[in-house]
């Protein structure tokens, strides 16, 4: 097991380097010249050139990349082109907000998703099952910006029980987390259901019944533990979707998180900021994937044997 974790850790190194590479070069392809942007409208050619020199934008791309790479490994993500503040400082302010939002939405994904999946699986093709699955289908197909606005309209504007936007109290978390977690919950619900139905058909469930085990114990003790194995993978994948989702949801609910920072920076052509933001987001994703892999392995010891 330890060996497995070490091996997986080593595997993440090339992934991280690859990420920096892709992030760096994609930003080069984005139209718009940061030097022009920084110099402001109607600046002279000389000024722009001077800024270029100062930022090192005139050097060959590969040199710029390696320069960037080494400073990143030193913890230096550069300074914002907009306000000359270190990028890392800004990220460290924004990241906890996004992590908090992600945490609550993944919680919703897991709890809501699995509960719905189990309810469906206990009596397949019943009214309950059909209702849950239709709701889940809606959850997958509704775009989150629309869903977010609808939630906002009902709970904040009409009922006025939850705040419209911002990020101050725990109440502020509910709507954005729900918006962000709903799609994932729907996918997890469907996955849990099909995985449960698969498990319920297994011979060992019949053995448990033949032993006289209560039906509820069969579901939770004998069924769920086995059914969870594929669900863990799906939950892990949801983290990836989550990162994209935060960008949208933070914009809708005016939350100053990492996602919103990246969007704003793109608009400003604030290159170092975007690079830093995307890089940190990718690192989080890599780490989460690692954790999911280890968990999966822990839950399913049998794969070690094969």
């Amino acid at each position, binding site marked *: 097991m330890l*060996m497995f974790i070490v091996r997986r850790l080593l595997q993440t190194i090339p992934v991280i380097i690859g990420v920096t590479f892709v992030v760096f070069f994609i930003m080069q392809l984005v139209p718009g010249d940061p030097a022009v942007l920084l110099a402001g409208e109607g600046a002279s050619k000389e000024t722009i050139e001077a800024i270029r020199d100062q930022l090192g934008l005139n050097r060959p791309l590969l040199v710029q990349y390696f320069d960037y790479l080494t400073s990143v490994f030193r913890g230096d993500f550069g300074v914002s082109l907009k306000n000359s503040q270190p990028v890392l400082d800004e990220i460290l302010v924004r990241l906890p907000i996004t992590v908090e939002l992600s945490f609550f939405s993944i919680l919703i994904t897991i709890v809501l998703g699995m509960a719905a999946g189990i309810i469906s699986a206990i009596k397949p093709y019943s009214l309950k099952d059909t209702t849950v699955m239709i709701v889940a289908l809606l959850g997958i197909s509704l775009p989150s910006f629309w869903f977010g606005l609808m939630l906002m309209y009902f709970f904040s504007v009409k009922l006025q029980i939850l705040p419209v936007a911002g990020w101050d109290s725990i109440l502020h978390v509910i709507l954005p987390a729900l918006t962000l977690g709903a799609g994932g919950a729907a996918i997890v619900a469907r996955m849990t259901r099909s995985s449960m139905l698969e498990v319920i058909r297994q011979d060992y469930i019949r053995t448990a019944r033949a032993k006289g085990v209560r039906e509820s114990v069969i579901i939770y003790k004998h069924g769920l533990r086995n059914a969870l194995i594929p669900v863990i993978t799906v939950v892990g994948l949801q983290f990836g979707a989550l990162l994209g989702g935060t960008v949208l949801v933070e914009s809708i609910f005016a939350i100053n998180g990492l996602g919103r920072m990246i969007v704003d920076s793109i608009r400003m052509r604030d290159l170092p900021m975007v690079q830093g933001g995307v890089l940190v987001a990718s690192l989080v994703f890599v780490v989460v994937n690692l954790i999911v892999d280890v968990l999966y392995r822990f839950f399913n010891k049998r794969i070690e044997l094969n």
Partner: protein
Amino acid sequence: MQGAADKNVLLEVEHLKQYFPVKTDSLFKPKAYVQAVDDIFFKLYEGETLSIVGESGCGKSTTGRAILRLDEPTAGRVYYSGTNILGLNKKEMRKLRGDLQVIFQDPFASLNPRQTVKQILNEAMAIQDVVEKSKRMDRMFELLGYVGLPPEALDRYPHEFSGGQRQRIGIARALAVNPKLIICDEAVSALDVSVQAQVLNLLKKLQKQFGLTFLFISHDLSVVRHISDRVMVMYLGKVVEIADKKDLFDTPLHPYTRALLSSIPVPNPELKRERIILKGDVPSPINPPNGCRFHTRCPFVTEKCKTEEPALRELDTNHMVSCHYAENFK
């Protein structure tokens, strides 16, 4: 059976080894291998049926697959009509596959569910190019006749047939390319007894009709007794005994063979036999026991068995056995 001397050797297996690497979790531990087949020898004579019996993990199916190079063997030589087929390149091997056919246990898994019987047979003939295109249709009807299926079967799909009929399709496909040797890997194990009897009769009939040689791999000793001329018993990747059927069933010389024979439940309640019940499980083929591989379960084990590996030696005419004390069981 005639003496071995006046028969042609069709297939000769020498020093055949099949090791499969096992994944280890540590980078520092030495790589482990499943020693599925470990240095075995045997000859297969033209027109005979040689059976390989043994329990799961003994290497009987691996042997069959290694001969056909379905899994590339680790080491050894397999001579077919004088040439070592393990040395052939892909093209030469493909040509030879027409001579060497195989029938598997689960005919459903080995027949393409989206092909009709006609397509299945056609494909087999086309790959080996044994029959001219214009004559293939006639040939197909002929093949169906041999295996006892009606001509209408041609346009149907495998799922429309029962297990026994599917096995007949598998046999027809093997026959389509005029093979010399057919390896039957647990070919009747999945069938009910009454159907099994039909398929066994069919195999025997076809063998006579076309002069086929069978390598019959099975765990069922009653079936083996019925169909074989000679029988080879394997245990943990080694040949423990090989003899003419009658000798093997009447005077088994290896303690494992004796235990195996006495373990078979016999459908005759009047018959009270002395049963040898072996203790424990078959050891893992990853780290097989030293000395004689059977010593951990053998009721007659001595110190010598734990350290010294017995050679496969000829104790009677055509009766080879690998036990230090085989003479005592005569």
